[in-house]
């Protein structure tokens, strides 16, 4: 009897824990990649998963909440603005370094891209005021993380990079 192939539902989540080129149990670097559909249920999943992945850095509750909040903003941006609610794939890469207590998160979509990044990151700027968007997403990411980088190409997509040092007290 032939074994049936399992067809993934559109909203199913693929989790892949990547193996580094030279896997070493003693390396201070650890990397994870999540690929999820831009479905509103996945935002909570991604922020919780990234926060859990950062636990080896011994973050404080405040630092964990900072990471969750910034990731939530980035993932919401992909779904609401990048894909404009039509769905698509969101890729989240997370690298932690337990030697330098550092976390680097990359969130990218292949959506419509941003016209003017300088304008987009201004507090209160939003292209969708009629949907009650606050225009504070980038402001929140900037104030909750140490550094934010935004790269975008019209029609190709947007990549947001978030950086944070963990105090590890």
């Amino acid at each position, binding site marked *: 009897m032939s074994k049936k192939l399992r067809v993934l539902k559109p909203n199913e989540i693929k989790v892949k824990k990547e193996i580094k080129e030279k896997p070493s149990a003693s390396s201070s670097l650890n990397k994870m990649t999540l690929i999820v559909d831009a479905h*509103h*249920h996945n*935002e*909570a999943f991604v922020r919780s998963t990234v926060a859990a992945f950062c636990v080896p850095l011994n973050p404080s*509750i*405040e630092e964990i*909440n*900072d990471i*969750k*909040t910034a990731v*939530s*903003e980035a*993932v*919401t941006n992909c*779904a*609401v603005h990048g894909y404009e609610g039509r769905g698509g794939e969101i890729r989240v890469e997370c690298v932690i370094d337990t030697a330098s207590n550092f976390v680097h998160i990359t969130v990218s979509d292949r959506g419509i891209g941003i016209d003017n990044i300088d304008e987009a990151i201004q*507090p209160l700027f939003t292209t969708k005021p009629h*949907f*009650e*968007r*606050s*225009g*504070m*997403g980038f*402001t*929140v990411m900037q*104030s*909750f993380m140490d550094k934010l980088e935004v790269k975008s190409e019209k029609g190709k997509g947007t990549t947001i990079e978030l950086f944070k040092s963990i105090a590890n007290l």
Partner: protein
Amino acid sequence: MNIKYQVANKVLHIYLNGELSEGTAQNTRSSLDNLIDSNNMVSVVFHLNGLSFMDSTGIGVLIGRYKKLKQRMTDVYVKEPTPQVEKIFRATGLFDIMPKIS
């Protein structure tokens, strides 16, 4: 998001329990609008000690309700935000329009 409410002395107390972000924004918005539209009050107090997480999408939902209530001359206050919610209120200046009361 679990929402409970009570009206006392013309004050509508709304208790938000859960997370307010993209996944819960739409339901929260319509529940809050139902509450606001079906009650007569002079002010609204959001009790936030059960709100474990909020992001800028949640800010948008609260500002939307604030604008609606302001048109009816109804004041809006918040009470007991959790540390994460307190931080996002501060980062976005939301306490300026929805003062925190004890």
